[in-house]
Protein backbone atom coordinates (compact mmCIF):
# COMPACT_ATOMS: atom_id res chain seq x y z
CA UNK A 1 0.00 0.00 0.00
CA UNK A 2 1.11 3.50 -0.69
CA UNK A 3 1.42 6.65 1.36
CA UNK A 4 -1.46 9.07 1.12
CA UNK A 5 -0.88 11.47 -1.76
CA UNK A 6 0.77 8.92 -3.99
CA UNK A 7 -0.56 5.83 -5.70
CA UNK A 8 0.86 2.31 -5.81
CA UNK A 9 -0.05 2.19 -9.45
CA UNK A 10 0.54 -1.54 -9.98
CA UNK A 11 -1.62 -2.47 -7.02
CA UNK A 12 -4.52 -0.28 -8.20
CA UNK A 13 -4.22 -1.28 -11.87
CA UNK A 14 -4.44 -4.89 -10.74
CA UNK A 15 -7.64 -4.16 -8.78
CA UNK A 16 -9.05 -2.39 -11.85
CA UNK A 17 -8.01 -5.25 -14.16
CA UNK A 18 -6.25 -2.93 -16.60
CA UNK A 19 -2.82 -3.69 -18.04
CA UNK A 20 -0.81 -0.47 -18.21
CA UNK A 21 2.15 0.22 -20.44
CA UNK A 22 5.37 1.53 -18.83
CA UNK A 23 4.61 4.96 -20.26
CA UNK A 24 1.08 4.98 -18.83
CA UNK A 25 2.35 3.76 -15.46
CA UNK A 26 4.80 6.63 -15.23
CA UNK A 27 2.37 9.25 -16.56
CA UNK A 28 -0.54 8.23 -14.33
CA UNK A 29 1.64 8.00 -11.21
CA UNK A 30 2.70 11.62 -11.50
CA UNK A 31 -0.67 12.98 -12.69
CA UNK A 32 -2.68 11.10 -10.08
CA UNK A 33 -0.20 12.25 -7.44
CA UNK A 34 -1.04 15.89 -8.14
CA UNK A 35 -4.76 15.14 -8.33
CA UNK A 36 -4.61 13.48 -4.90
CA UNK A 37 -2.73 16.49 -3.57
CA UNK A 38 -5.56 18.64 -4.88
CA UNK A 39 -8.05 16.40 -3.02
CA UNK A 40 -6.25 17.20 0.26
CA UNK A 41 -8.25 20.44 0.48
CA UNK A 42 -11.21 18.36 1.67
CA UNK A 43 -9.34 17.87 4.94
CA UNK A 44 -9.90 21.55 5.78
CA UNK A 45 -13.62 20.97 6.11
CA UNK A 46 -15.27 19.93 9.35
CA UNK A 47 -17.78 17.25 8.43
CA UNK A 48 -18.49 15.95 11.91
CA UNK A 49 -22.18 15.20 12.26
CA UNK A 50 -22.77 15.56 8.50
CA UNK A 51 -24.61 12.68 6.83
CA UNK A 52 -23.00 11.31 3.65
CA UNK A 53 -25.04 11.79 0.50
CA UNK A 54 -25.11 9.02 -2.10
CA UNK A 55 -27.92 10.50 -4.17
CA UNK A 56 -29.54 13.88 -4.70
CA UNK A 57 -32.85 12.54 -3.47
CA UNK A 58 -33.84 9.89 -0.98
CA UNK A 59 -33.69 6.64 -2.91
CA UNK A 60 -35.83 3.81 -1.67
CA UNK A 61 -36.12 0.29 -2.91
CA UNK A 62 -38.44 0.23 -5.87
CA UNK A 63 -40.01 -3.16 -6.44
CA UNK A 64 -42.13 -4.20 -9.34
CA UNK A 65 -44.74 -6.90 -9.34
CA UNK A 66 -43.16 -10.34 -9.37
CA UNK A 67 -44.44 -11.26 -12.82
CA UNK A 68 -42.46 -12.54 -15.77
CA UNK A 69 -41.76 -10.10 -18.58
CA UNK A 70 -40.32 -10.80 -21.97
CA UNK A 71 -36.54 -10.44 -22.28
CA UNK A 72 -34.07 -10.92 -25.10
CA UNK A 73 -34.11 -14.16 -27.01
CA UNK A 74 -30.78 -16.00 -26.72
CA UNK A 75 -29.63 -15.02 -30.23
CA UNK A 76 -30.01 -11.31 -29.45
CA UNK A 77 -28.40 -11.65 -26.04
CA UNK A 78 -25.18 -13.18 -27.37
CA UNK A 79 -25.18 -11.34 -30.70
CA UNK A 80 -22.22 -9.13 -29.79
CA UNK A 81 -20.05 -11.63 -28.00
CA UNK A 82 -16.59 -11.82 -29.53
CA UNK A 83 -16.84 -15.61 -29.51
CA UNK A 84 -19.93 -17.75 -29.14
CA UNK A 85 -21.11 -21.32 -29.58
CA UNK A 86 -24.63 -22.77 -29.29
CA UNK A 87 -26.05 -19.41 -28.17
CA UNK A 88 -23.51 -19.17 -25.37
CA UNK A 89 -20.61 -16.78 -24.87
CA UNK A 90 -17.31 -18.57 -25.35
CA UNK A 91 -14.35 -17.64 -23.14
CA UNK A 92 -10.81 -18.98 -22.70
CA UNK A 93 -10.50 -21.96 -20.38
CA UNK A 94 -10.93 -20.80 -16.77
CA UNK A 95 -10.05 -24.00 -14.83
CA UNK A 96 -6.94 -25.93 -15.71
CA UNK A 97 -6.89 -29.70 -15.73
Amino acid sequence: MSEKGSIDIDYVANLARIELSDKERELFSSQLGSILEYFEQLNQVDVSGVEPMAHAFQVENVLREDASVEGFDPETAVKHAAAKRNNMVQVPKVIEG
Partner: protein
Amino acid sequence: MADELHYKTLSELQVLLTAGELSSVELTKSLIERKEEVDPRVQAFNSLDEEQVISQAEASDQRRGAGESMGSLDGIPIGLKDVISVKDSPLTCSSKMLENFVSPYDATVTTRLKEEGAILFGRLNMDEFAMGSSTENSAFNTTFNPWDLERVAGGSSGGSAAAVSAGSVPVSLGSDTGGSIRQPASFCGVVGLKPTYGRVSRFGLVAYASSLDQIGPFGRSVKDVASVLQSIAGHDPRDSTSIEQTVPDYLGSIESNKGPWKLGVPKEYFGEGLDPEVKACIEKAIDWYADQGCEIHEVNMRNMDLAIAVYYIIATAEASSNLARFDGVRYTHRSKDAENAIDLYFKSRAEGFGEEVKRRIILGTYVLSSGYYDAYYLKAQKVRTLIRQDFMKAYETVDALLTPTSPFVSFKAGEKSEDPLQMYLADIYTISANLAGIPGISLPCGPNSEGLPVGLQILGKPFGEADLLAIANSFEEAHDYSQQHPEI
Protein backbone atom coordinates in the same frame (compact mmCIF):
# COMPACT_ATOMS: atom_id res chain seq x y z
CA MET B 1 -34.16 26.33 -49.61
CA ALA B 2 -31.32 24.68 -47.68
CA ASP B 3 -29.77 28.01 -46.69
CA GLU B 4 -33.10 29.19 -45.38
CA LEU B 5 -33.76 25.97 -43.48
CA HIS B 6 -30.66 25.09 -41.55
CA TYR B 7 -30.90 27.87 -38.97
CA LYS B 8 -34.66 27.69 -38.47
CA THR B 9 -35.66 26.88 -34.92
CA LEU B 10 -37.69 23.85 -33.99
CA SER B 11 -40.77 25.99 -33.41
CA GLU B 12 -40.40 27.63 -36.85
CA LEU B 13 -40.03 24.21 -38.49
CA GLN B 14 -43.12 22.92 -36.64
CA VAL B 15 -45.16 25.79 -38.12
CA LEU B 16 -43.90 25.09 -41.66
CA LEU B 17 -44.58 21.35 -41.36
CA THR B 18 -48.06 21.88 -39.93
CA ALA B 19 -48.95 24.41 -42.63
CA GLY B 20 -47.83 21.96 -45.32
CA GLU B 21 -45.24 24.46 -46.59
CA LEU B 22 -42.42 22.03 -45.90
CA SER B 23 -42.23 18.24 -45.89
CA SER B 24 -40.13 16.24 -43.48
CA VAL B 25 -38.33 14.68 -46.45
CA GLU B 26 -37.34 18.13 -47.78
CA LEU B 27 -36.16 19.16 -44.34
CA THR B 28 -34.25 15.94 -43.73
CA LYS B 29 -32.56 16.01 -47.14
CA SER B 30 -31.52 19.62 -46.70
CA LEU B 31 -29.97 18.80 -43.31
CA ILE B 32 -28.12 15.84 -44.83
CA GLU B 33 -26.68 18.29 -47.38
CA ARG B 34 -25.78 20.74 -44.66
CA LYS B 35 -24.11 17.99 -42.67
CA GLU B 36 -22.11 16.92 -45.73
CA GLU B 37 -21.03 20.51 -46.27
CA VAL B 38 -19.91 21.44 -42.75
CA ASP B 39 -19.24 18.23 -40.87
CA PRO B 40 -15.92 17.36 -42.55
CA ARG B 41 -14.63 20.44 -40.70
CA VAL B 42 -16.70 20.31 -37.49
CA GLN B 43 -16.68 16.51 -37.02
CA ALA B 44 -19.78 16.48 -34.82
CA PHE B 45 -21.18 13.20 -36.17
CA ASN B 46 -19.94 9.68 -35.48
CA SER B 47 -22.46 8.21 -37.91
CA LEU B 48 -25.59 9.03 -39.90
CA ASP B 49 -27.66 6.41 -41.73
CA GLU B 50 -29.01 8.57 -44.57
CA GLU B 51 -31.32 5.96 -46.05
CA GLN B 52 -32.88 5.29 -42.69
CA VAL B 53 -33.51 8.95 -41.80
CA ILE B 54 -35.09 9.59 -45.20
CA SER B 55 -37.38 6.60 -44.79
CA GLN B 56 -38.36 7.85 -41.30
CA ALA B 57 -39.12 11.24 -42.88
CA GLU B 58 -41.23 9.63 -45.61
CA ALA B 59 -43.24 7.78 -42.98
CA SER B 60 -43.75 11.06 -41.11
CA ASP B 61 -44.99 12.83 -44.25
CA GLN B 62 -47.41 9.96 -44.92
CA ARG B 63 -48.77 10.22 -41.37
CA ARG B 64 -49.20 13.95 -41.73
CA GLY B 65 -50.91 13.54 -45.09
CA ALA B 66 -53.36 11.10 -43.51
CA GLY B 67 -54.01 13.45 -40.59
CA GLU B 68 -52.34 11.03 -38.18
CA SER B 69 -49.29 12.90 -36.90
CA MET B 70 -48.01 11.32 -33.71
CA GLY B 71 -46.81 14.26 -31.66
CA SER B 72 -45.31 17.75 -31.71
CA LEU B 73 -41.92 16.45 -32.88
CA ASP B 74 -43.31 14.47 -35.82
CA GLY B 75 -40.99 14.91 -38.79
CA ILE B 76 -38.38 16.86 -36.80
CA PRO B 77 -34.77 15.61 -37.03
CA ILE B 78 -33.05 15.29 -33.65
CA GLY B 79 -29.44 14.23 -33.08
CA LEU B 80 -28.47 11.89 -30.25
CA LYS B 81 -25.22 11.78 -28.33
CA ASP B 82 -23.55 8.45 -29.04
CA VAL B 83 -24.16 7.27 -25.48
CA ILE B 84 -27.96 6.87 -25.80
CA SER B 85 -29.24 3.52 -27.10
CA VAL B 86 -31.24 3.26 -30.31
CA LYS B 87 -32.34 -0.26 -31.24
CA ASP B 88 -30.36 -1.75 -34.14
CA SER B 89 -28.17 1.37 -34.32
CA PRO B 90 -24.45 1.73 -33.51
CA LEU B 91 -23.68 2.82 -29.92
CA THR B 92 -19.97 3.55 -29.61
CA CYS B 93 -19.60 5.98 -26.68
CA SER B 94 -16.74 7.24 -28.91
CA SER B 95 -14.69 4.31 -27.61
CA LYS B 96 -12.78 1.52 -29.31
CA MET B 97 -14.32 -0.69 -26.66
CA LEU B 98 -17.74 -0.39 -28.36
CA GLU B 99 -16.56 0.40 -31.89
CA ASN B 100 -18.64 -2.39 -33.46
CA PHE B 101 -21.49 -2.53 -30.97
CA VAL B 102 -25.09 -2.24 -32.17
CA SER B 103 -27.70 -1.66 -29.46
CA PRO B 104 -30.34 -4.40 -29.07
CA TYR B 105 -32.85 -2.03 -27.41
CA ASP B 106 -34.09 1.56 -27.20
CA ALA B 107 -33.36 3.95 -24.35
CA THR B 108 -36.56 5.32 -22.79
CA VAL B 109 -35.84 8.80 -24.23
CA THR B 110 -35.47 7.14 -27.66
CA THR B 111 -38.81 5.37 -27.25
CA ARG B 112 -40.46 8.68 -26.30
CA LEU B 113 -38.97 10.49 -29.31
CA LYS B 114 -40.11 7.66 -31.60
CA GLU B 115 -43.60 7.88 -30.10
CA GLU B 116 -43.60 11.59 -31.04
CA GLY B 117 -42.58 10.75 -34.61
CA ALA B 118 -39.16 12.45 -34.39
CA ILE B 119 -36.48 11.58 -36.97
CA LEU B 120 -33.44 10.16 -35.12
CA PHE B 121 -30.75 12.02 -37.02
CA GLY B 122 -27.33 10.49 -36.46
CA ARG B 123 -25.03 9.65 -33.56
CA LEU B 124 -23.04 12.58 -32.18
CA ASN B 125 -19.43 12.59 -31.04
CA MET B 126 -18.40 12.92 -27.40
CA ASP B 127 -15.51 12.42 -25.04
CA GLU B 128 -15.03 8.68 -24.62
CA PHE B 129 -17.66 7.37 -22.17
CA ALA B 130 -18.57 11.05 -21.49
CA MET B 131 -15.27 11.64 -19.67
CA GLY B 132 -13.87 15.01 -20.64
CA SER B 133 -14.58 18.69 -21.22
CA SER B 134 -13.47 19.20 -24.82
CA THR B 135 -14.45 16.15 -26.95
CA GLU B 136 -10.71 15.67 -27.53
CA ASN B 137 -10.99 12.34 -25.68
CA SER B 138 -13.06 10.74 -28.44
CA ALA B 139 -11.34 7.64 -29.82
CA PHE B 140 -12.42 8.70 -33.31
CA ASN B 141 -12.30 12.48 -33.89
CA THR B 142 -12.02 15.81 -32.12
CA THR B 143 -15.17 17.89 -32.60
CA PHE B 144 -14.27 21.47 -33.49
CA ASN B 145 -16.11 24.64 -32.59
CA PRO B 146 -18.18 26.02 -35.51
CA TRP B 147 -17.30 29.57 -34.36
CA ASP B 148 -13.56 28.91 -34.69
CA LEU B 149 -12.40 25.61 -36.12
CA GLU B 150 -9.10 25.74 -34.19
CA ARG B 151 -11.03 25.66 -30.94
CA VAL B 152 -12.84 22.85 -29.15
CA ALA B 153 -16.61 22.38 -29.03
CA GLY B 154 -16.45 21.68 -25.29
CA GLY B 155 -17.50 18.41 -23.75
CA SER B 156 -18.37 15.85 -23.14
CA SER B 157 -21.45 16.41 -25.39
CA GLY B 158 -19.36 18.39 -27.90
CA GLY B 159 -20.94 16.75 -30.97
CA SER B 160 -24.47 17.50 -29.74
CA ALA B 161 -23.64 21.19 -29.21
CA ALA B 162 -21.60 21.66 -32.39
CA ALA B 163 -24.17 19.96 -34.65
CA VAL B 164 -26.88 22.37 -33.43
CA SER B 165 -24.53 25.35 -33.65
CA ALA B 166 -23.43 24.44 -37.20
CA GLY B 167 -27.02 24.10 -38.43
CA SER B 168 -26.77 20.36 -39.12
CA VAL B 169 -29.71 19.61 -36.84
CA PRO B 170 -32.23 21.88 -35.02
CA VAL B 171 -32.16 20.06 -31.66
CA SER B 172 -30.20 17.24 -30.05
CA LEU B 173 -29.83 15.26 -26.83
CA GLY B 174 -26.74 15.09 -24.67
CA SER B 175 -25.93 13.93 -21.17
CA ASP B 176 -24.58 16.00 -18.28
CA THR B 177 -22.60 14.47 -15.41
CA GLY B 178 -20.54 17.51 -14.41
CA GLY B 179 -21.44 20.12 -17.01
CA SER B 180 -21.33 18.05 -20.20
CA ILE B 181 -24.43 19.72 -21.67
CA ARG B 182 -24.07 23.26 -20.32
CA GLN B 183 -20.34 23.82 -20.99
CA PRO B 184 -20.39 22.79 -24.69
CA ALA B 185 -23.65 24.78 -25.14
CA SER B 186 -21.79 27.79 -23.74
CA PHE B 187 -18.73 27.22 -26.01
CA CYS B 188 -20.85 26.73 -29.15
CA GLY B 189 -23.37 29.55 -28.56
CA VAL B 190 -26.48 27.39 -28.18
CA VAL B 191 -28.96 26.64 -25.38
CA GLY B 192 -28.39 23.51 -23.26
CA LEU B 193 -30.42 22.25 -20.31
CA LYS B 194 -29.48 19.77 -17.61
CA PRO B 195 -32.74 18.73 -15.93
CA THR B 196 -33.14 17.87 -12.24
CA TYR B 197 -31.70 14.47 -11.34
CA GLY B 198 -34.62 12.05 -11.77
CA ARG B 199 -36.61 14.25 -14.18
CA VAL B 200 -35.60 12.23 -17.27
CA SER B 201 -35.16 8.47 -17.37
CA ARG B 202 -31.58 7.21 -17.64
CA PHE B 203 -32.65 3.77 -18.93
CA GLY B 204 -30.57 3.08 -22.03
CA LEU B 205 -28.00 5.80 -21.26
CA VAL B 206 -24.58 4.15 -20.91
CA ALA B 207 -23.68 4.95 -17.30
CA TYR B 208 -20.67 7.05 -16.33
CA ALA B 209 -21.52 8.20 -12.78
CA SER B 210 -25.03 7.02 -11.98
CA SER B 211 -25.80 9.42 -9.13
CA LEU B 212 -24.89 12.43 -11.32
CA ASP B 213 -25.79 11.53 -14.95
CA GLN B 214 -28.82 13.18 -16.53
CA ILE B 215 -30.00 13.39 -20.16
CA GLY B 216 -31.02 16.80 -21.51
CA PRO B 217 -31.69 18.79 -24.70
CA PHE B 218 -29.74 21.27 -26.85
CA GLY B 219 -31.44 23.80 -29.14
CA ARG B 220 -31.07 27.21 -30.74
CA SER B 221 -33.75 28.72 -28.50
CA VAL B 222 -35.05 28.28 -24.96
CA LYS B 223 -38.48 27.32 -26.30
CA ASP B 224 -36.98 24.56 -28.45
CA VAL B 225 -35.22 23.11 -25.44
CA ALA B 226 -38.52 23.31 -23.51
CA SER B 227 -40.34 21.40 -26.29
CA VAL B 228 -37.82 18.57 -26.27
CA LEU B 229 -37.80 18.37 -22.46
CA GLN B 230 -41.60 18.12 -22.56
CA SER B 231 -41.29 15.00 -24.71
CA ILE B 232 -38.60 13.19 -22.72
CA ALA B 233 -39.42 14.10 -19.08
CA GLY B 234 -41.35 11.92 -16.66
CA HIS B 235 -41.23 8.81 -14.54
CA ASP B 236 -40.05 5.53 -16.02
CA PRO B 237 -40.57 2.23 -14.20
CA ARG B 238 -37.29 1.01 -15.73
CA ASP B 239 -35.25 3.72 -13.98
CA SER B 240 -35.83 3.43 -10.23
CA THR B 241 -34.19 6.86 -9.71
CA SER B 242 -36.62 8.64 -12.01
CA ILE B 243 -39.11 10.51 -9.87
CA GLU B 244 -42.89 10.17 -9.98
CA GLN B 245 -43.83 13.80 -10.25
CA THR B 246 -46.16 15.53 -12.73
CA VAL B 247 -44.43 17.10 -15.71
CA PRO B 248 -45.59 20.72 -16.01
CA ASP B 249 -46.46 22.45 -19.29
CA TYR B 250 -43.07 24.06 -20.00
CA LEU B 251 -44.06 26.15 -23.04
CA GLY B 252 -47.19 27.26 -21.15
CA SER B 253 -45.02 28.39 -18.26
CA ILE B 254 -42.80 30.40 -20.61
CA GLU B 255 -45.91 32.23 -21.86
CA SER B 256 -47.51 32.82 -18.47
CA ASN B 257 -44.56 33.37 -16.12
CA LYS B 258 -43.04 36.75 -16.89
CA GLY B 259 -41.52 37.53 -13.48
CA PRO B 260 -40.18 39.54 -11.88
CA TRP B 261 -38.08 36.97 -10.05
CA LYS B 262 -35.79 36.97 -7.06
CA LEU B 263 -32.37 36.06 -8.40
CA GLY B 264 -29.24 35.14 -6.47
CA VAL B 265 -25.68 35.94 -7.43
CA PRO B 266 -23.15 33.73 -5.62
CA LYS B 267 -20.00 35.78 -5.22
CA GLU B 268 -17.83 32.67 -5.19
CA TYR B 269 -18.55 32.27 -8.92
CA PHE B 270 -16.94 35.61 -9.74
CA GLY B 271 -13.53 35.18 -8.14
CA GLU B 272 -10.06 34.28 -9.33
CA GLY B 273 -9.83 32.40 -12.62
CA LEU B 274 -12.87 34.03 -14.23
CA ASP B 275 -12.01 35.63 -17.57
CA PRO B 276 -12.68 39.41 -17.34
CA GLU B 277 -14.64 39.50 -20.61
CA VAL B 278 -16.84 36.58 -19.54
CA LYS B 279 -17.37 38.33 -16.21
CA ALA B 280 -18.43 41.54 -17.98
CA CYS B 281 -21.00 39.66 -20.11
CA ILE B 282 -22.52 37.97 -17.04
CA GLU B 283 -22.63 41.23 -15.07
CA LYS B 284 -24.41 42.88 -17.99
CA ALA B 285 -27.00 40.08 -17.95
CA ILE B 286 -27.48 40.51 -14.17
CA ASP B 287 -27.98 44.25 -14.69
CA TRP B 288 -30.57 43.53 -17.37
CA TYR B 289 -32.58 41.35 -14.95
CA ALA B 290 -32.33 44.08 -12.30
CA ASP B 291 -33.63 46.62 -14.85
CA GLN B 292 -36.66 44.38 -15.44
CA GLY B 293 -37.59 44.68 -11.80
CA CYS B 294 -35.98 41.47 -10.52
CA GLU B 295 -34.59 41.55 -7.00
CA ILE B 296 -30.90 40.65 -7.07
CA HIS B 297 -29.52 39.07 -3.89
CA GLU B 298 -25.94 38.21 -3.09
CA VAL B 299 -25.83 34.62 -1.83
CA ASN B 300 -23.09 32.37 -0.47
CA MET B 301 -21.92 29.08 -1.91
CA ARG B 302 -19.17 28.71 0.64
CA ASN B 303 -18.22 25.16 -0.35
CA MET B 304 -18.07 25.79 -4.10
CA ASP B 305 -14.30 25.61 -4.29
CA LEU B 306 -14.46 22.05 -2.91
CA ALA B 307 -16.86 20.85 -5.60
CA ILE B 308 -14.20 19.75 -8.09
CA ALA B 309 -12.44 17.55 -5.54
CA VAL B 310 -15.78 16.07 -4.42
CA TYR B 311 -16.88 15.50 -8.00
CA TYR B 312 -13.71 13.80 -9.18
CA ILE B 313 -13.81 11.44 -6.20
CA ILE B 314 -17.49 10.51 -6.52
CA ALA B 315 -17.65 10.42 -10.32
CA THR B 316 -14.50 8.33 -10.76
CA ALA B 317 -15.55 5.96 -7.95
CA GLU B 318 -18.89 5.36 -9.64
CA ALA B 319 -17.21 5.09 -13.06
CA SER B 320 -14.73 2.47 -11.85
CA SER B 321 -17.69 0.35 -10.81
CA ASN B 322 -19.91 1.08 -13.85
CA LEU B 323 -17.15 0.43 -16.38
CA ALA B 324 -16.25 -2.94 -14.85
CA ARG B 325 -18.84 -4.41 -17.22
CA PHE B 326 -16.56 -3.70 -20.20
CA ASP B 327 -14.48 -6.81 -19.70
CA GLY B 328 -13.96 -8.30 -23.15
CA VAL B 329 -16.35 -11.16 -22.48
CA ARG B 330 -19.91 -10.36 -23.50
CA TYR B 331 -20.23 -7.51 -25.95
CA THR B 332 -17.09 -5.43 -26.11
CA HIS B 333 -13.72 -5.41 -27.79
CA ARG B 334 -11.89 -8.65 -26.98
CA SER B 335 -8.12 -8.88 -27.07
CA LYS B 336 -6.72 -11.49 -29.42
CA ASP B 337 -3.52 -11.86 -27.38
CA ALA B 338 -5.00 -13.10 -24.12
CA GLU B 339 -3.62 -16.38 -22.81
CA ASN B 340 -6.27 -17.08 -20.20
CA ALA B 341 -9.55 -15.69 -18.83
CA ILE B 342 -7.99 -13.23 -16.37
CA ASP B 343 -5.51 -12.03 -18.95
CA LEU B 344 -8.50 -11.41 -21.24
CA TYR B 345 -9.80 -8.74 -18.85
CA PHE B 346 -6.44 -7.00 -18.51
CA LYS B 347 -5.62 -6.94 -22.23
CA SER B 348 -9.13 -6.18 -23.56
CA ARG B 349 -9.44 -3.23 -21.18
CA ALA B 350 -5.91 -2.02 -22.00
CA GLU B 351 -6.69 -2.08 -25.73
CA GLY B 352 -10.30 -0.88 -25.59
CA PHE B 353 -10.11 2.12 -23.22
CA GLY B 354 -8.43 5.44 -24.01
CA GLU B 355 -6.08 7.30 -21.69
CA GLU B 356 -8.59 9.48 -19.82
CA VAL B 357 -10.93 6.55 -19.19
CA LYS B 358 -8.06 4.48 -17.78
CA ARG B 359 -6.95 7.42 -15.64
CA ARG B 360 -10.43 7.84 -14.14
CA ILE B 361 -10.95 4.11 -13.56
CA ILE B 362 -7.58 3.92 -11.77
CA LEU B 363 -8.40 7.00 -9.68
CA GLY B 364 -11.89 5.70 -8.85
CA THR B 365 -10.56 2.28 -7.95
CA TYR B 366 -7.98 3.91 -5.66
CA VAL B 367 -10.47 6.11 -3.75
CA LEU B 368 -12.69 3.08 -3.14
CA SER B 369 -9.83 0.75 -2.18
CA SER B 370 -9.33 -0.63 1.28
CA GLY B 371 -7.78 1.95 3.60
CA TYR B 372 -8.75 4.99 1.48
CA TYR B 373 -12.53 4.68 1.30
CA ASP B 374 -13.21 6.80 4.41
CA ALA B 375 -10.55 9.40 3.65
CA TYR B 376 -11.75 10.06 0.11
CA TYR B 377 -15.10 8.58 -0.86
CA LEU B 378 -17.00 8.90 2.42
CA LYS B 379 -15.53 12.36 3.04
CA ALA B 380 -16.57 13.47 -0.45
CA GLN B 381 -20.11 12.22 0.14
CA LYS B 382 -20.31 14.31 3.31
CA VAL B 383 -19.02 17.46 1.62
CA ARG B 384 -21.57 16.74 -1.12
CA THR B 385 -24.27 17.13 1.56
CA LEU B 386 -22.82 20.53 2.51
CA ILE B 387 -22.82 21.66 -1.13
CA ARG B 388 -26.48 20.70 -1.50
CA GLN B 389 -27.32 22.51 1.74
CA ASP B 390 -25.74 25.71 0.37
CA PHE B 391 -28.12 25.62 -2.60
CA MET B 392 -31.20 24.79 -0.53
CA LYS B 393 -30.41 27.66 1.82
CA ALA B 394 -30.05 30.09 -1.09
CA TYR B 395 -33.38 28.91 -2.54
CA GLU B 396 -35.12 29.96 0.68
CA THR B 397 -34.68 33.56 -0.52
CA VAL B 398 -34.24 33.36 -4.30
CA ASP B 399 -35.92 31.58 -7.23
CA ALA B 400 -32.75 30.92 -9.19
CA LEU B 401 -29.04 31.74 -9.38
CA LEU B 402 -27.18 33.59 -12.15
CA THR B 403 -23.57 32.57 -12.83
CA PRO B 404 -21.12 32.08 -15.68
CA THR B 405 -21.36 28.61 -17.28
CA SER B 406 -17.61 28.37 -17.78
CA PRO B 407 -14.74 30.54 -16.48
CA PHE B 408 -13.59 31.09 -20.08
CA VAL B 409 -14.68 30.87 -23.71
CA SER B 410 -13.76 27.90 -25.90
CA PHE B 411 -10.02 27.14 -25.83
CA LYS B 412 -7.73 25.97 -28.62
CA ALA B 413 -7.54 22.24 -29.32
CA GLY B 414 -4.53 20.77 -27.51
CA GLU B 415 -4.25 23.69 -25.07
CA LYS B 416 -5.38 21.79 -21.97
CA SER B 417 -5.20 18.16 -23.02
CA GLU B 418 -1.75 17.50 -21.48
CA ASP B 419 -2.79 18.46 -17.96
CA PRO B 420 -5.86 16.62 -16.65
CA LEU B 421 -6.20 18.80 -13.55
CA GLN B 422 -6.35 22.00 -15.65
CA MET B 423 -9.06 20.35 -17.77
CA TYR B 424 -10.98 19.34 -14.62
CA LEU B 425 -10.92 22.96 -13.41
CA ALA B 426 -12.89 23.96 -16.54
CA ASP B 427 -15.96 22.43 -14.87
CA ILE B 428 -15.82 24.56 -11.74
CA TYR B 429 -19.13 26.39 -12.23
CA THR B 430 -21.18 23.47 -13.55
CA ILE B 431 -20.39 20.46 -11.36
CA SER B 432 -22.09 21.67 -8.17
CA ALA B 433 -25.49 21.37 -9.86
CA ASN B 434 -24.87 17.67 -10.53
CA LEU B 435 -23.71 17.07 -6.96
CA ALA B 436 -26.83 18.83 -5.61
CA GLY B 437 -29.14 17.27 -8.25
CA ILE B 438 -30.58 20.64 -9.30
CA PRO B 439 -31.41 21.78 -12.87
CA GLY B 440 -29.29 24.24 -14.83
CA ILE B 441 -29.44 25.92 -18.22
CA SER B 442 -26.81 27.67 -20.31
CA LEU B 443 -27.82 30.27 -22.88
CA PRO B 444 -25.82 32.68 -25.02
CA CYS B 445 -25.27 36.10 -23.40
CA GLY B 446 -22.99 37.74 -25.87
CA PRO B 447 -19.86 37.22 -27.85
CA ASN B 448 -16.54 38.36 -26.38
CA SER B 449 -14.27 40.77 -28.27
CA GLU B 450 -13.03 37.88 -30.46
CA GLY B 451 -16.59 37.01 -31.45
CA LEU B 452 -16.67 33.82 -29.38
CA PRO B 453 -19.85 32.83 -27.51
CA VAL B 454 -20.22 33.34 -23.75
CA GLY B 455 -22.77 31.34 -21.76
CA LEU B 456 -24.99 32.53 -18.90
CA GLN B 457 -25.82 29.73 -16.49
CA ILE B 458 -29.09 29.83 -14.55
CA LEU B 459 -29.45 27.28 -11.74
CA GLY B 460 -32.92 26.42 -10.45
CA LYS B 461 -34.70 24.68 -7.63
CA PRO B 462 -35.18 20.89 -7.79
CA PHE B 463 -37.92 20.24 -10.40
CA GLY B 464 -37.99 24.00 -11.10
CA GLU B 465 -37.38 23.64 -14.86
CA ALA B 466 -40.59 25.58 -15.67
CA ASP B 467 -39.33 28.67 -13.79
CA LEU B 468 -35.81 28.19 -15.14
CA LEU B 469 -37.02 28.15 -18.75
CA ALA B 470 -39.24 31.21 -18.19
CA ILE B 471 -36.34 33.16 -16.65
CA ALA B 472 -34.02 32.15 -19.51
CA ASN B 473 -36.62 32.90 -22.18
CA SER B 474 -37.22 36.43 -20.92
CA PHE B 475 -33.51 37.24 -21.40
CA GLU B 476 -33.37 35.53 -24.77
CA GLU B 477 -36.41 37.41 -26.12
CA ALA B 478 -34.90 40.76 -25.20
CA HIS B 479 -31.57 40.02 -26.92
CA ASP B 480 -30.51 38.65 -30.28
CA TYR B 481 -27.67 36.41 -29.10
CA SER B 482 -29.53 33.19 -29.95
CA GLN B 483 -30.07 34.44 -33.50
CA GLN B 484 -26.36 34.88 -34.10
CA HIS B 485 -24.80 31.99 -35.98
CA PRO B 486 -21.24 31.09 -36.89
CA GLU B 487 -20.04 31.73 -40.42
CA ILE B 488 -19.14 28.31 -41.62
